[in-house]
């Protein structure tokens, strides 16, 4: 049998990857205030307590506003960059794309403090808006990675056919290219939404008094009695992000299949 030991190892590795996530629902439904083993019996009270937890709903509202705005702006910027880098040759391309993709490897804390210094320096008050500025910067490289694979697998002759039939570059983009990369765009929106919803450091530094969901969760870790509620919240969040990512993956694959490319797998 080929790869027997490797398969065993890979499965063990998956168990290691998923271990913390599997524990999450166990504690969310556990009837005890202390997060430890052995488990104490089944309860759903942490979920009902979650509904009345002070501060949670405003944080959720802030997070939703930030994540939706970030997803739309970052995907729009990503479309420009991905289209430019896959279709055109221009001077300084490597440098420009390198700068745009830099947040992918730059430690988030560096991005957060440098933005903080500049925003306070020019007198912009910290708010949801400044968090969106930071999140767009962080998520744009991911949208470019997804959208590039959608644009890359595009057949150039389709576009040329549209020109020959009298379309302008703008109308050809709207009528021919946009529908073909639409699955990539949906995938990019979902991924950037998920990243923004989960992002902590930038929201922590740039949010001022406006708290996002991760900042709220982080502040609650200090109070042992509110941790079970956070476990319940976490269970819902993890379920939601797995759902969103599955939809994103579905559209990403469909997009590549639609424009005739070969799936090379993975979001990156």
């Amino acid at each position, binding site marked *: 049998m*080929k790869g027997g030991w*490797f*398969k065993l*190892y*890979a499965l063990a*590795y*998956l168990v*290691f*990857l998923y271990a913390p*996530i599997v*524990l*999450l629902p166990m504690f969310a439904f556990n009837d005890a205030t202390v997060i*430890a*083993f*052995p488990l104490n019996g089944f309860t759903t009270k942490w979920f009902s307590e979650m509904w009345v937890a002070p501060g949670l709903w405003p944080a959720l509202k802030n997070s939703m506003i930030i994540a939706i705005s970030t997803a739309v702006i970052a995907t*729009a910027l990503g479309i*420009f*960059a991905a*289209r430019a880098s896959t*279709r*055109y*040759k*221009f*001077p300084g391309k490597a440098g*420009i794309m390198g*700068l745009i993709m*830099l*947040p992918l*490897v*730059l*430690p988030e*804390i*560096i*991005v957060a*403090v*440098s*933005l903080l*210094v*500049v925003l306070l320096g020019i007198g912009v008050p910290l708010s949801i808006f400044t968090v969106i500025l930071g999140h*767009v*910067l962080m998520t*744009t490289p991911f949208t470019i990675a997804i959208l590039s694979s959608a644009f890359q697998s595009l057949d150039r002759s389709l576009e040329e056919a549209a020109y020959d039939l009298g379309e302008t570059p703008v109308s050809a983009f709207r009528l021919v290219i946009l529908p073909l990369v639409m699955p990539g765009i949906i995938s990019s929106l979902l991924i950037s939404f*998920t990243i923004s919803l*989960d992002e902590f*450091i930038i929201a922590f*530094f740039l949010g001022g008094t406006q708290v996002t969901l*991760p900042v709220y*969760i*982080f502040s609650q870790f200090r109070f042992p009695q509110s941790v079970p509620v956070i*476990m319940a919240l*976490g269970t819902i*969040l*993890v379920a939601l*992000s797995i759902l969103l*990512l*599955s939809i994103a*993956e579905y559209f990403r694959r469909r997009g590549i299949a639609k424009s005739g490319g070969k799936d*090379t*797998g993975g979001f*990156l």
Partner: protein
Amino acid sequence: MKRSARGAGTEASSGLLLVSPPAIYALVLLAAPLATIILYSFFTDGYLEVIREFTLANYWETWVNPLYRTVMLRSLLVSVLVTAATVLLAFPVAYFVSFHVDPSRKSLWLFLITIPFWTSYLIRVFLWKVILGYNGVVNSGLLSLGIIDEPLTFLLYNTNSVVITLAHAYAPFAILPIFVALEKIDRSLLEAGQDLGETKFATFCRVTLPLAMPGVVASVLIVFIPTIGDYVTPQLVGGPEGRMVANLIQLQYLRLDNYPLGSAIAVSAMGIVAIISLIFLGLTRRYLRAPK
């Protein structure tokens, strides 16, 4: 290849025009702020405001004060350990998915591997605290099996716990670049190796591994660079002995309001990471030349 009627000049200008919105965004909100903190790191912290006079005192403080130096060296050590652990553990998984998984199921495997990476980082880190804690999963498991008599205390709130948690967080990041490099290897080269009398292991060492090196190098960098700036993990599971450079930066900026010193620490950390990355790229350069 057939070119459209428009010339190279217009192609360059439409490319530049198209890339300008994201490029300007990155210039204003990334390049300019980075330049600003580099500038700030040479200023002096005054009471309530920053004094704009050139000084190297912040760097002196960062590099000579044992408090800051210890944290900086520890962050470096943690990053190196995390990178080594992640890449070594990830390689066999990437190899398995690339060489032994049926092509139609590869995306499913990659999807399963990447999912944990995208889900609630904060809560995952907190759960490691639960796993490694005094009443945690590991301790209660070992107690009930009778292997230990009292809970182990060295599991949490030290450098070990930071390394374990970060290695878990960055695992998927390491697998993907290695997988991509392995996928690019022409399988007939491996057959050729074996036809010429090499054993499977020798073929792996002499053909597969050198060809996979670009992926390994990318993995190392993509894990090493962000790890050094991680804030949440040392804060939650590190305890006082596990503090890293990000905690120090946060302290200077948000608690002590000393922007110049905070900037000097941040810039020093970036500088160290950049230099180590460049040295690493230099050492592995012979593997990175494009084949053919």
